[in-house]
């Protein structure tokens, strides 16, 4: 049998042994057997001394080829077996992925805060400033500069918590409008602002009344502001807060600080405008008051009503939240039951 044949046979047998090895230990044994210093290939190569100088490199090359083949086969087999071991291991590690995830502590913003933030962001995008004023106000800013002199009958509409004769808990956030109007320099551009905040009324708390609630008031004063601009702005607000399918309608109303004054209704959430109990069969729900700023308000703040004018509006985030989420008791907003608070996951 020539050396070459011997080598061929060795390859045959070696590959078969490798194939039959069933674990990593086997593979190692086979490797030592085949490729070790005392292995058959080494032995064959030792027999090369007896060959012609001509034959020697050929057989040598062949022997190296076979050694590489066997080494590759061993490596491949080893990888296969390792993979099998890993797979078996991973199979053992299988868990029930439907078990609940580990709870993490996560807080939610208050639902009214979410609505206030949404309104703020909308108006910031339209170039308004956000201004907040004192909650304890002077009668002058809360009422008088809002065209509500001391004996004005409309003062009965909003019962007030007084601290002294001249100091009170603000009943609206519009005093900030008066304060800002007084200071605004119109040569630097129009005044566009909203004032969000907490307001207070002398009410007994019940499902629809709260002595503390929120308001966001808006004000735009410039040279050419129209009532159509007011209507368009309120439409944008309604679409932002409730969705595009909600219509806005304006109705005449009365506020001492605006003339004309309107109330704005939006399509009823509950029935989509067809009429139901919630909207008293009108298909509409009242959501805010607005109007063109009364000339007296401008005059009192030192702004010339013959040159400047504009609109103001006031919305109640509490009412919005009640309507939007069907909350039937306003007191929920101030009692802070965590089961209530955590229902309003912040979107976006």
């Amino acid at each position: 049998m020539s050396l070459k044949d011997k080598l061929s046979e060795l390859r045959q047998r070696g590959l078969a042994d490798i194939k039959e090895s069933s674990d990593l230990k086997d593979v190692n044994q086979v490797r030592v057997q085949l490729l070790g210093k005392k292995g058959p290939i080494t032995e064959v190569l030792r027999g090369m001394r007896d060959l012609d100088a001509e034959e020697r490199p050929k057989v040598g090359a062949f022997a190296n080829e076979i050694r590489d083949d066997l080494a590759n086969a061993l490596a491949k087999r080893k990888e296969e077996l390792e993979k099998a071991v890993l797979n078996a291991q991973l199979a053992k590690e299988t868990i029930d992925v439907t078990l609940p995830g580990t709870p993490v502590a996560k807080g939610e913003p208050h639902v009214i805060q979410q609505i206030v933030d949404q309104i703020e962001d909308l108006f910031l995008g339209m170039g308004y400033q956000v201004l907040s004023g004192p909650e304890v106000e002077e009668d002058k800013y809360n009422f008088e500069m809002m065209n509500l002199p001391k004996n004005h009958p409309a003062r009965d509409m909003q019962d007030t918590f007084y601290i002294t004769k001249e100091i009170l808990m603000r009943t609206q956030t519009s005093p900030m409008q008066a304060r800002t109007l007084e200071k605004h320099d119109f040569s630097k551009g129009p005044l566009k602002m909203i004032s969000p905040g907490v307001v207070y009324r002398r009410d007994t708390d019940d499902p629809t009344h709260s002595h503390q609630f929120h308001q966001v008031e808006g004000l735009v004063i410039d040279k050419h502001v129209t009532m159509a601009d007011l209507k368009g702005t309120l439409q944008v607000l309604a679409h932002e807060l409730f969705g595009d399918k909600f219509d806005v309608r304006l109705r005449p109303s009365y506020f001492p600080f605006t003339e004309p004054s309107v109330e704005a209704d939006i399509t009823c959430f509950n029935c989509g405008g067809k009429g139901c109990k919630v909207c008293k069969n009108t298909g509409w729900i009242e959501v805010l008051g607005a109007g063109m700023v009364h000339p007296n308000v401008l005059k009192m703040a030192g702004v010339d009503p013959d040159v400047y004018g504009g609109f103001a509006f006031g919305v109640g985030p509490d009412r919005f939240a009640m309507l939007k989420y069907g909350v039937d008791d306003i007191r929920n907003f101030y009692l802070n039951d965590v089961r209530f608070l955590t229902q309003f996951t912040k979107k976006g």
Partner: protein
Amino acid sequence: MKISYNWIKEYLDLNVKPADLAEKIERTSVEVDGVTTPSDGLKKIVVGHVLSLEAHPDSDHLHVCQVDVGEDEPLQIVCGAPNVAAGQNVIVALPGSRIADNVKIKKSKMRGVPSAGMICALQEIGFPEDVVPKDYVDGIYVLPEDATPGDAVYDYLGMNDSLIDLDVTPNRGDMLSLYGTLHDLAAIYDKPVKLDHPEVKEDGTAIADQLAVHVDDALSPQYRMRLVKNVKLAPSPMWLQIRLWNAGMRPINNVVDITNYIMLKYGQPLHAFDYDKFNGEDVYVRTAKAGEKLTTLDENDHDLDENDIVIADQKGPIALAGVMGGLDASIQDGTTTVAIESAVFEHDHIRKAAQRHNLHTDASQRFERGVNQAGVQEALDAAAQMMNELADGEVQKGSVVGSSNIPDSAVIDITLTHVNAILGTELTMDQVSHILESLGFEVAVNDDTLTVTVAVRRNDIHIPADLLEEIARIYGYDQLPATLPTGRMTMGTLTMKQRLMRATRHSLEGLGLNQAISYALTTEEKAKMFMMQDSETTNLAWPMSVDHAVLRMNVVSGLLDDIAYNSARKVKDVALYEQGRVFYREDGNDRPSEEEHIAGAITGTLMPEAWNQPAQPVDFFQMKGIVAAYLKDMVVNGDVTYEPNADMPEMHPGRTADVLVHGHRIGFLGQIHPLIAKQFKIGATYVFELNLQAIIDMPKQENQYDVISRYPAITRDIAMLVDDDVTNDQVVALIERRGGAFLQSVKLFDVYDGVKVPKGKKSLAYTLTYQDKHETLVDDAVTQAFDKVSKRLEDDLGAQIR
């Protein structure tokens, strides 16, 4: 005010359904609270004629009646009303009928006697008790003699009319009357309205010989009276009673009803006095004198003062002007001569009198808003004429007029350009002038200018802006275009303060706390808890309740209220924060200063128990971790330190720390005192409160890049025994100060004071990390530094290194 659809139709040719009319009014004039038709929901309620009745055999108050309901056989109905009698026409709810509140009536037996239906009181078919004539309040109602048995009762009682309930704003006093409403509807529908005007048939002698009035015209700009003699008091005819009860008023007798009817029609409150009860022939309109008293029609006694306007005779007050008449001179059985008053009273006095005496009447409501000052005499004449027609009275010649200051019409110039510039419309001159004329105003056009003479009844219109409203609403708000303001661009950005307030909320939410909004008005006791600085309280002058009477000077107590609310509802794990203001007041100032605070409170566990995680009750260090993480988010520039504070009465003396930034106290954190927890009825609770304004105002760190070393760090652990009163801060401060140039961080990894350490000692263990930014540290250098610091700990703090 409830206004009758049928009554409107008598004057205005409208072809719209009541609901549509109501919607139009709501969109164009005033809010509508609802439209009701009293007969809605009622079924099979007919006129019955009581043929006979006999006592029920087993009852002393029931009667067994045979009632003709227009069918072949009479019905037998058992009736318990005391006033049922043979020969009456009554309201019968037939078997199978439906009466008020959706109640169904079936055949039944009453104490063994079959009863086929029910004889009804007005309340039982839906009338509010306060409009039912007094004679019928406690029994069944008796229909007119000419009613036909078997007919539905609704038309006899005016129940098929539709009633539109107007919620009139304070400026639209004119809408508190039929005539005022008609004027608006005429403009809305662009139709002519024909109003009737009274012609008085006078008789007898001149009133001037029988009555004189003396009026302070500052109190009463108009004061007029007529005298009607020989009136015969009787119930009013049905049509008049129907008008009243459909407007929510109770019919009394013909004379009183006429005054109320005229008020509904013209908006002018009238008062009818019994002339024979006057002391003397002089009537005075004046302010009351201190000590004077009056018993009003509702039999309540009032102490009067000089702020009240009264009508008085020689002896004293006989009416609280514009609010309610006095009982003594009122129309009563036996009255034959009636003095009718038609007047205008100064609105502010009326408003205050109504408040002071808690008497908000139909009259005061109208005088407060202002009546049609051009129609005072007409209303008086109309009433007198009706007393002639309906009560056979003789209207004496003429009126007495104590004052007659009828205001001039407002005349307002407005340009078409201005109208379109403000409304954003493109109206024509014709459109605008037509709208104003349809409201009954006179309009003169000169180029671009309209000169508008406003009807006196519209006392709410004084300036061009008022006219703009009239034009806009009659034109229709639906027709206005919708645009957005144009003009110079403005920036819309949050201020730094606003951004930090938002960041504060986001940070604490990320740390697991839910935002709460609590009441800023609280009890005096809670307002003063957890004080961070000295302050006077700010108290409401007239609180609604002691629970909300004083402005808070801390935010924590409100959060404890919230936890108590949760706890009472078996919610045991509560983690809340609140961003809000506290109100500090200095002695001598009426007004407090307002300071933004941020506070948190946790009870139970922050991390809820789960299948793979045991419940971990909140403790001081968890709350401290939250405060520390939050302050890191606020990037305040300066070291944050915590110092024990055993002096806050509401806090646990051993588990409370002041929070300091750069040595400046900004708040506190810790466990609330167990006695406070007990007072609020809550479990162990950890809280913090910080002066948010201070945090906002503090300088902030610049974020600067710090090179991350490429060279390996070497760590050494050190454990030591120290006395119990040695604090972690002391140890860390010493290590940091004496740790050498390469010390990067000191981290506490163990605290132990169990059985294995001697009494009065505790074991602390730290990992010290060393690193050089520029080269690899050699072990020797670290060992040297480490030994040095160990020595220092032994020398300075008496530590035993282990």
